[in-house]
């Protein structure tokens, strides 16, 4: 019984460690704001111009454009956008900072 009490916190710590180690692969969603430059419906992609200060896109500066993959469930929403629309998006970088960006949500502002 006493032995079990000692092991319980250790197991929790191990679980936390495993979850932490897998965190970069899961990658949390990030927020960004910008202006729609081009909706490439044929290729399921959106070109977004970063807002002032980079609009939340890591390393970006105002006016730079970036490609976002539009997943099937967001194609309707993205298809309704037009160049010049101001949008807020959340996205994830599935393969870490070196991989492409995939939209998780897109909202017209």
């Amino acid at each position, binding site marked *: 019984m006493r032995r079990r009490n000692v092991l319980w916190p250790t197991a929790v710590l191990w679980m936390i460690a495993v979850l932490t180690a897998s965190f970069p692969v899961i990658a949390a969603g990030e927020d960004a704001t910008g202006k729609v430059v081009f909706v490439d419906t044929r*290729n399921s992609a959106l070109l977004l111009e970063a807002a002032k200060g980079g609009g939340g896109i890591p*390393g970006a*500066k105002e*006016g*730079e454009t970036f*490609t976002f993959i539009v997943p099937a469930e967001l194609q309707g929403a993205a298809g309704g956008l037009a*160049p010049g629309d101001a949008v807020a998006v959340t996205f994830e970088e599935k393969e870490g*900072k070196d991989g*492409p960006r995939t939209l998780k949500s897109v909202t017209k502002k």
Partner: protein
Amino acid sequence: MKRWEVIQAVVLVTLIALVTCEPSTVQAQAQAWDKTGWLKKLEEAKKAEGRVMIQYDAQPNYANWGGVTLFFKKSYGVDIPPDMKGSSATMAALVKERQTTVADVAYYNAVIAAQAGVEKGVHAPYKPMGWDKLPGDCKDPEGRWFCVHEGVIAFIVHTKALERAGVPVPKCWKDLIDPKYKGLVAYDDPTVHGTAWESIFSANVAMGGSTKDIKPGIEYLKKLDPNILRYSRDTSYNPALRGEVAIWFNADGNGYKMKWEDGGPIEVVIPCEGTIATPLAMGMVKWAKRPKLAMAYLDWLLSPEAQGIWADSYWLPAIREYMTENAKKKMKPLHGDYKLVKSVPILEKQDIIDPYKKAWLEQIKRK
């Protein structure tokens, strides 16, 4: 008999002339820019791929991309939206986005274009119309990048701002170290902008450095640092035009545009210790979603029309024969001479891009 000899001689000379002239005539015809054929190609591309294509790094105020893309849209009906990325950011974006990118073509400093096309493998090989007229050292033999125009690194000076500060227009790199220029000098972040990288490399060459030795450049930049206003991640074109930046290291063409087109009190100085040329290049993106449009556009960029627009925008066209008389008249520096431009092969520069950026980040960049 004499008359017969004369006739014989004339026939002989005519035949020799025809035989010797034929190859060059044929060659000239083959190299002539076939606009009719190109228009057909463009129309087919538009039918298949639409009327928008994407260029990474198309800053309206750099190399008159604003004017070039507007002309292309008005004349040929294809829209190319602006993009404010510099050369390094363009390469980084393509490396990251790879097959998902919507970019069809990319523009860079030629050194970075070569790195992107060859080392990073983000370009598709393509040799546009006019390829044979490009100088051999300004294109990849396989077509993974090629030059479109060239600038010369210079001091772009706002004469009114210098007058207000009570200092003379500098003539040499060494002048700028004087504390009287404190807060008056700027160059953009060389880890973001290819032209800014060329600017610090130009300082290195002027101080006696080379593609094998960056120490003179770093030592100079350290001495210059107290006088530097900022190392901007954004282009300093507008701040320099407004006089917020009194002395900006950049390509001469941008300075001449500020002077002649924007009407600013701007002069261009070729520093007395020398400077370098900075060729700019294009590449077709390996994963271009509109390859036919991309090819037609790249063809056009080497046409007499596009090359002439660049000449009239004060950028030396990659195909020199398209240089205009108007540009020759207006591209005159206040101090210095174009004879001071030192030639450094593009591929030789490639090996020191990253080490020089790293040294700059570690020893010069402000934390």
